[in-house]
């Protein structure tokens, strides 16, 4: 699965995107956030406030309960500030 990061999530993790293989128990977007936080201090720093992180699954907004099954691209980013 491809993970993509934007804005300060991207800056804190230090990557624009990466390929990951998720363990079977990571079933939802919320599970993914929890799993990523354990991958190192950059992830911990970027994802320390899960409520400040938005998720899109295959380019559609999701929430913590959105299942990841079949997803090809999951994006993590802060609340949006366009317009």
């Amino acid at each position: 699965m491809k993970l993509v990061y934007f804005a300060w999530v991207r800056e804190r993790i230090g990557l624009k995107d990466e390929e990951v293989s998720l363990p079977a128990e990571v079933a939802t977007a919320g599970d993914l956030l929890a799993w990523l936080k354990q991958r190192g201090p950059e992830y911990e720093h970027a994802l320390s406030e899960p409520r400040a992180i938005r998720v899109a699954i295959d380019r559609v907004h999701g929430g913590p309960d959105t299942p990841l099954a079949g997803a090809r691209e999951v994006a993590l980013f802060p609340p949006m500030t366009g317009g």
Partner: protein
Amino acid sequence: MAEITVRIEGDPFEMAEEVARLRMLRPVGAIVTFTGICRDEGGRLTALELEHYPGMTEAEIQRIAAEAAERWALAGVTIVHRVGKIAVGDDIVLVAVASAHRSAALEAASYIMDFLKTRAPFWKKEYPGGEWVAHRHSDDEAAKRWK
């Protein structure tokens, strides 16, 4: 069926050209435009840099425009959003809506702006300073009134 145009661009846009295309549609009795302009926040800023999520941005804005066209009788909707570095005083976004009657165009423009703020994947970084603009809670509240 409303004619929907969505563009994400680095270059400045010309509002007059976008409006000229919309007014060729029928039936059109009202055109509303919203132009969002880069503010200096009391002299603190010289520019903003806009990052976005290519591929998702266009799709999400199309969804927002299609929802508006479902909710109101619209002849056309044009949304142009710039990305990259934008100097203070320059345009960031244009939403232009054409309809037969005024309330449809006015309400649809307002609806589209509220959801552009809360759902379109853009992020603004301030210059100088490099701080990311904080999301405004009032934008979430504004979007909720359309439920």
